[in-house]
């Protein structure tokens, strides 16, 4: 628990909260330019959030506290994960919570409360979104945990600080077959968890093609702002997790406060790069029909299993 650690954790949360809508803006702008449009500018998601915060909140008749609490819990779980994962520094004060399994489970908790809110509305679309979302979550879990297994074998621990420190000490490990297989498996799992193409289209208006959007059709005003912010933060956190696990250079591992500044720049750069790559990739992809998604997730699971096998047989 050092001063640099506490400052780092606070900075992490601030950057994720402030930068997530910017990341979404950059991704939308990249898509727009590739599609030949002019785009709304990288600041548009922040303008949307500011406007939504000033609108009238609505509670539909017949919903319960679950509906009211879900956006708050969603943002809260993502904030805890943003504070815990070593994006900027490995000396986080929340190190006992910085376990990869715990982080993944916390993010799943956020999805679950949103699914419950979708069921709470009692509309057909809310139930449909919840049903599809938990199916995808159930099928992504094996990939996530087996990929975590593959990453933790050489390090001997699932603690995120330990994994980062170990990778920093032995950079050549990143291009090993274990690492590459696990990275691809995790990338597919992240696409599924954050609801990006080809699993779910975040910009669709057709309710029957929705997975995430269908659960939030009833939210308005500040509630909707929280849901959108949480969605952006989850994408940032997941991409940051990918960067932290496989490209941890720049993360401050010492106790100095000065090392945080290059860490901030490195984190922002890495996440932006990943976001741009994801957005550019989405231009070339169409959404898969729902019952093809399990095939995609099974493929990523096989990759993760291969990563574990490689970690055993290739050491």
């Amino acid at each position, binding site marked *: 628990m050092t001063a640099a650690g506490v400052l780092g954790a606070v900075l992490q949360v601030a950057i994720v909260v402030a930068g997530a809508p910017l990341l979404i803006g950059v991704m939308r702008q990249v898509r727009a330019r590739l599609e030949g449009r002019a785009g709304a500018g990288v600041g548009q998601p922040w303008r949307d959030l500011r406007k939504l*915060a*000033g*609108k*009238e*909140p609505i*509670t*539909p*008749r017949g919903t*319960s506290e*679950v509906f009211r609490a879900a956006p*708050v*819990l969603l943002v*809260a779980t993502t*904030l*805890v994960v943003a*504070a*815990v994962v070593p994006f900027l520094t490995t000396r986080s004060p*929340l190190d*006992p*919570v910085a*376990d990869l*399994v*715990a982080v993944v*489970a*916390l993010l*799943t*908790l956020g999805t679950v409360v949103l699914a*419950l809110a979708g*069921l*709470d*509305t*009692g*509309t057909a679309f*809310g*139930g449909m979104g*919840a*049903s599809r979302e*938990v*199916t995808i*979550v*159930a*099928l*992504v*879990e*094996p990939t996530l*945990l*087996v990929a975590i*297994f593959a990453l933790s*074998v050489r390090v*001997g*621990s*699932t*603690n995120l600080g330990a994994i980062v420190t170990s990778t920093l000490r032995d950079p050549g490990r990143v291009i090993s077959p274990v690492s590459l297989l696990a990275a691809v498996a995790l990338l597919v799992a992240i696409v599924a968890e954050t609801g990006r193409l080809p699993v779910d289209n975040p910009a669709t208006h057709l309710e029957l093609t929705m997975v995430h959007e269908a659960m939030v*059709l*009833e939210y308005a*005003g*500040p509630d909707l702002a929280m849901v959108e912010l949480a969605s952006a933060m989850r994408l940032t956190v997941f991409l940051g997790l990918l960067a932290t696990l496989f490209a941890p250079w720049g993360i401050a591992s010492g106790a100095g406060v000065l090392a945080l500044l290059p860490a901030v720049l490195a984190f922002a750069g890495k996440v932006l790069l990943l976001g741009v790559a994801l957005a550019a990739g989405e231009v070339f992809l169409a959404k898969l029909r729902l*019952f093809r998604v399990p095939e995609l997730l099974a493929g990523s699971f096989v990759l993760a299993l291969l990563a*574990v096998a490689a*970690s055993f047989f290739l050491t």
Partner: protein
Amino acid sequence: MSLAGTALGLAMAAAAVATLAAVGSPARVRAAAVGASTAIAGAAGLVAGVAAMAGGGAAAVELPGLLPLSGVAFALDPLGGLFLAVVGGVAVAAAVYGIGYAGHGLDGRAVQASFPLFVAAMLLVPAAATVGTFLVCWELMALTSLLLVVAEHRRRAEVAQAGVWYAVMSHLGFVAILVGLLVFAGHAPDDAFGSLRAVAGQLSPAVGGVVFGATLVGFAAKAGIVPLHAWLPRAHPEAPSHVSAAMSAAMVSLGVYGIVRVGFDLLGGLPGGQRWWWLLVMGLGAVSAVYGILQAAVHTDLKRLLGYSTTENMGLVLVGVGAAGTFAAAGRDVLAGLALAAALLHVINHAAFKSLLFLAAGSVLRATGSRDLDELGGLRAGMPATTALFGLGALAASALPPGTAFVSEWLLVQSLVHGLPASGVATAVTMPVAVAAVALTAGLAVATFVKAFGVGFLAKARSPAAAKARESPATMLAGMGAAAAACVALALFPGVVLPSVGRAVAASGAGSADPVVGGAVSMRLVGVAGSLSPLLLATALLVAVVGVVATLRLVANRYARRVAPLWDCGAGPLTARMEYTATSFAEPLLRVFDDVLQPELDVDVTHHRESRYLVEAVEYRRRVPDRVERRLYRPVLAAARWWGEAGRRLATGSVHRYLGYGFYSVTALLIVLAVTR
């Protein structure tokens, strides 16, 4: 006598008082008297278990006169103490709950008397110190629970069938355990567990395998492991809810107790070659976990869903036990201790949240008369306390932080993950598959409990019965509250029970003592790198929630909150029929896993009298059968029937023939004995 022995004696006395109260007291106070005395018995059992886990030195009691030929002997060591504490705790919650629940037509003398006897038998099983005592207590437990399962047989027809399944399977399991333990005891001077332990080193691997295999069959059947699980989803829905809670939370754990006791403790001295046992246990556990939760995910009967979830959790426990055995056989004591600690902690956690879930389900059943999730919904309005408690139980069961099962599943994953480096090829293949199975189970458990809670309790009521639901009486809420308090305590402060679990692990002989160091705030693994602080996680979440709410108050306060009708696309009022049901919620999962589940579809089209092109009615029926039952049990039952009918041909009705059978078989036996001796 030690505290443990005194407390156990007190528990027996309280159970005896309860039985007498059940038989003797007038109907008005019967339920309350029995419930209170049984709760005292349970509390005393809990104290005895905790004392046994804490204190060094086993307490022992021998009563040679009680049973002819062998007498009974009881001894408490930390391993038995853990299960004793689990049974005691569950009994307290179930007994208090039963006071309010008994008004359901369940306050007949026989039913009320069976419950304290059931609790007493369950308390004695972990304390048994000889084979004879163990078998007697096991059978007593099975008989009393059978009486309780069929308690409502006059009201519903399915209860009798469930009772038959339960009786047959528990007695077949009993026979298997009997065979295994008697083969073992046959090689020892007497049937005390101490003698069995001493003689284990001299058994041949074949005999050891037979003993382990037979006892595994019996104990796995009791624990609800695939393929011997068929009684569980039948018996648990039909039993009264507090009995279901006691059976699901306490009785099935005794199956695990048996496997650990026989496999690790009694057969621990067996030299080498046992790895295949534990891989078999792990395999059975993984299959049960995935199959159980898959069935739970697609069923809409709430108590059947919870029964299948018990199969899943016992499967996870067996994965941990199997992993512990595999590590112990490879000489890696630290990991073996960790895996067994994870399994035992999961037994405790499962007892807490499963009893809460079953009691809440019983509350719903009592208020609405229905267990079918497709008919429930909207219970938040009429039953807010039950809804909150079930929500807590669902969080606890779904292995999400800050829930209860998350802690034990984290420990289990840690033990499996650390098992890979520097081990054999067998482990290299099984550990990733085990991790994948645990992960798939966790994901499906999330889906199942979102379905159970979201469809059953939230949104609008789907039937008039659900719309008229009212909250349960105070005793039922108190029972649920006790279980909920245990869930919360175990979720946030696992460090409190971890030292005791460590002592139980050491007593079983599987691994080193204290595989996990539990502080007040966080748990730290010993010997391998890993630590987790559930309390810190929960606190961080709370702080974040407070922060978000405060920011909202500051930032978003221009308009007051409006209550508006649901957005129905402008077309008209939304009815309850437009809500998603549990069947529709599980439909994508059913489609993804249809090779495993193989749903049966029946479509009956009635055409119009006048023309085949007009349809008058369509009847659509879909059910998900238990595939293991279909594929495995039906052939076995068919073979048994064929065998019986073949045997009928021997029973011609002629007395001469029967006398001839007796004469010839005795003669043959005498000849065989004369030749072989």
